[in-house]
Each structure stands twice: as structure tokens, then as C-alpha cells.
């Protein structure tokens, strides 16, 4: 692992994309940034612009309208970019997998680096997933 990879791992900036979510995963993601769990000790920040992002968190079921937005966000992000699918809907489609407007789980649209299942996943599970992701490269 070189110097560049080390810096990248130590400073993952996160952009949060919520699809047609029921908001439970959104709340759990925001929970990770609160004082109790404090992701900033790993150098993780929530950024407002996709141009600054290193990690794209995707949660919620992706329907046909969301698919275009997600693809555009993915193409506008500076590479290297890690994609994390959060929650049952993001990983597999969950209970919406048979739905009429459902446009496939996240990995049918963009390549995914980590899956964090759960409905919703606990903040501890999200932190564990992100730490494993940081150790992967």
C-alpha cells in the first residue's frame, strides 16, 4: 500500500444519494455522523457536492426516474469512486423487487464496492462496512 492509497483510505468523503427510500436508512446514515458514533475519527465527512465525493452511498429502492439521476451522479463524480449500497432495497430490492417501477438493485446500474444489508442496517453495521471498505484497497 503506497502513500496515495493510504491518504485515500484515511480521508473518505461521503456523498449520500437517497433513492425512493422509506427514510429509515437515511436516518441511520445520519446517525453515524452524530456524537455517539462519530465517523469523523476515521476522516469521513459528509460533503454537499458530488465533485468532492470519494464514496457514493446509495440507499432506497431505485425506480426508473432515480436510475437516470444515479447514473448522472456516477458519471459526474471524480474517479476513483467507491459505491456502497445500503439497506435491503439498495442491495437486492427488498420488498420492492417485484414492483412495476423498480429499475433493478444498485449493482445492475453502477458497479458496487460494498453491500451493507439490513432493514435498516444499524449504525454499527454501516461503520463496520465502511471500515472494511477503507481496508480493502
Amino acid at each position: 500500500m503506497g502513500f496515495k492509497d493510504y491518504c485515500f483510505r484515511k480521508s473518505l468523503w461521503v456523498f449520500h444519494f437517497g433513492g425512493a427510500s422509506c427514510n429509515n436508512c437515511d436516518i441511520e446514515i445520519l446517525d453515524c455522523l452524530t456524537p455517539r458514533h462519530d465517523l469523523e475519527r476515521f476522516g469521513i465527512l459528509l460533503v454537499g457536492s458530488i465533485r468532492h465525493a470519494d464514496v457514493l452511498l446509495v440507499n432506497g429502492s431505485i425506480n426508473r426516474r432515480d436510475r437516470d439521476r444515479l447514473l448522472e451522479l456516477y458519471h459526474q463524480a471524480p474517479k476513483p469512486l467507491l459505491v456502497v449500497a445500503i439497506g435491503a432495497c439498495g442491495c437486492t430490492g427488498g420488498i420492492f423487487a417485484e414492483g412495476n417501477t423498480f429499475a433493478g438493485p444498485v449493482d445492475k446500474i453502477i458497479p458496487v464496492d460494498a453491500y451493507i444489508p439490513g432493514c435498516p442496517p444499524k449504525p454499527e453495521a454501516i461503520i463496520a462496512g465502511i471500515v472494511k471498505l477503507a481496508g480493502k484497497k
Partner: protein
Amino acid sequence: MAVNLLYFFIFPGLIFMAAAGGLLSWFDRKITARVQFRKGPPLLQPFYDFFKLLLVKETILPKHGSGFIFLLAPLLALFGATMAGLFILLPLFNIETGFRGDIIVIFYLLTLPSFSYIIGALASGNPLGAVGASREMKLIISYELTFLLLVAAVIMKSGLQFDLNSVIAAQQSGPPFIGSISGVLLFIAGIFCVQAKLALVPFDMPEAEAELASGIYIEYSGPPYAMIRLAKYIMLFILPAFLVALLMNGMNTGINIVWLILKILGVVLLLTLIRNTNPRVKIKQASGFFLVWMNLLVVVAIVLIAFGL
């Protein structure tokens, strides 16, 4: 020539200021975390951020925009911050005495980063960037008059000395300026000006993460954004240093360098605490705050200085 290059790039210049500014940025983030009962980032976090942006990430140019000016703006910001820092730190460390009128030069160079952010945001062709740029313009119009009056008041208090070295010398032969009533008023106005210049929270409408998605920096990615971060680190170091030089006695020789570090850390601590205990104000409120109240404060201070208080 060689010694000038050394000054610009190594000791009081780019590398030293970047290192000091990065550590101050960590201090700021750590204090913020402690105020919110969090643990906070590790010591070298600002440097990880900088090198990640510089070495790893790719640069994306906006499609509908002027690429050349978009890329030139961060370099201009970095140049302005470094140059201003050089003119501030050389007299502060008693290395070279500067020249007559260098306070005015410092004043203009300190606005260069803000101006180049505006130019870069407008060159990106992004509507949110344009909104951020217009807010930054209004903010500059608001605080610059106060800052200029403050510099004028300090010049008046030091007996019409127009160079920073003489201002520091005037304080070291007598009491520091902050030890008088007018000095305290000037320090209050100066803290708020520095807060607005750094775009920290009561006055962070240009970036406004929640509404404008980083506003003026929205289109920057990779190495140009790393340059902007570096300019911001340097500004976080040199603006408190400028305030220390103007009002708080500068640096004496010998062991007193510890005092200098403590004074700068104290000013940054004050900025951080203001940032953490205030909400973001509207642009109109910020303009009113500076154009009416802060100007009034500095004018009162100038009147007091005329009476020798």
C-alpha cells in the same frame, strides 16, 4: 534572489505556512468535535485530505464554462494567500523589516483569495456557484470597509506608521494596543472581520453546504480543490497572525515565540467557539451587522484613539 525564493517557498513562505495552517485546521476541527462531544479527526487529517485531493482524485472541467480561468483561480488564490502571509510573517518574525506602506499591500493581497473564488465560481458556469459568488461579493462589500477602518485605526494609534514592523515596534516599546479601550473595540471588530474573511459559520453563506451544496467550490474536484484547501489553511494561519501583529504585540525575541504560538492559538480558539455557537445568518443581516454596527464600533474606537485612550 536565492534568499527571496527561500523566503517565498520554504521558511515563512509556502511550506511553513501550509504546515502551520494544516495543524491549525486540525485544531479547529478537533475543538469543534470536542464542543459537540465527539472524538474528532486524527492529527494529520488536513494533510491526508490535501494529498488525497492532490494525488488521487481526477480533475473534472465543467462543460459550459471557461476551463482556463476555472483552473487559474485556485492558483491565484494560493498566490494571494502566500504573498500576504509573507508580508505579514517577515515583520512578525523580525526577519526583514518590510517597506513603508506594506500594511496597505497586505490589505489588498488578503482580498485576492476571495476575489479568485468569485472568478472561479463564475467561470464554472454552475447556477449554484453563481449564487455563491454573488453572496461572496456582497460579503466582501460588507466587511472590507470595516477591515480598512480597522487598519486605519491601528495606523493612527501607532502614530501614523504605515509599515507593519513599526506598528509592532510601537507596541513593543509601549503597552500592546489591546491593553486599551479602543484596542479592545478594534479586537472585537477584527475577530468578526476575520470570521467573515475565512467564511466561517455565522458568515458562511458563500459555501452554505446545506442550501448551495458548497456554493463557490461546487465544481472543483481533485488538484484545483486541493489548491483551494491549501489557500484556506494558509488563510486560517495568517489572518490570526495579522491580528496578533496589529493589536497584540507581535513577537519578542527568544523564548517569547511560545507566547506568539499561544496568542495565535487563542485567536483561532475564539474563532472556532464563535463558529460553533452561532447559526448561519442571512446575507442581509450580515451586511447590516458590518455596515452599521461594526463600522460604528471602529469609528468609536477611532474617536477614542484621537482622545488618546
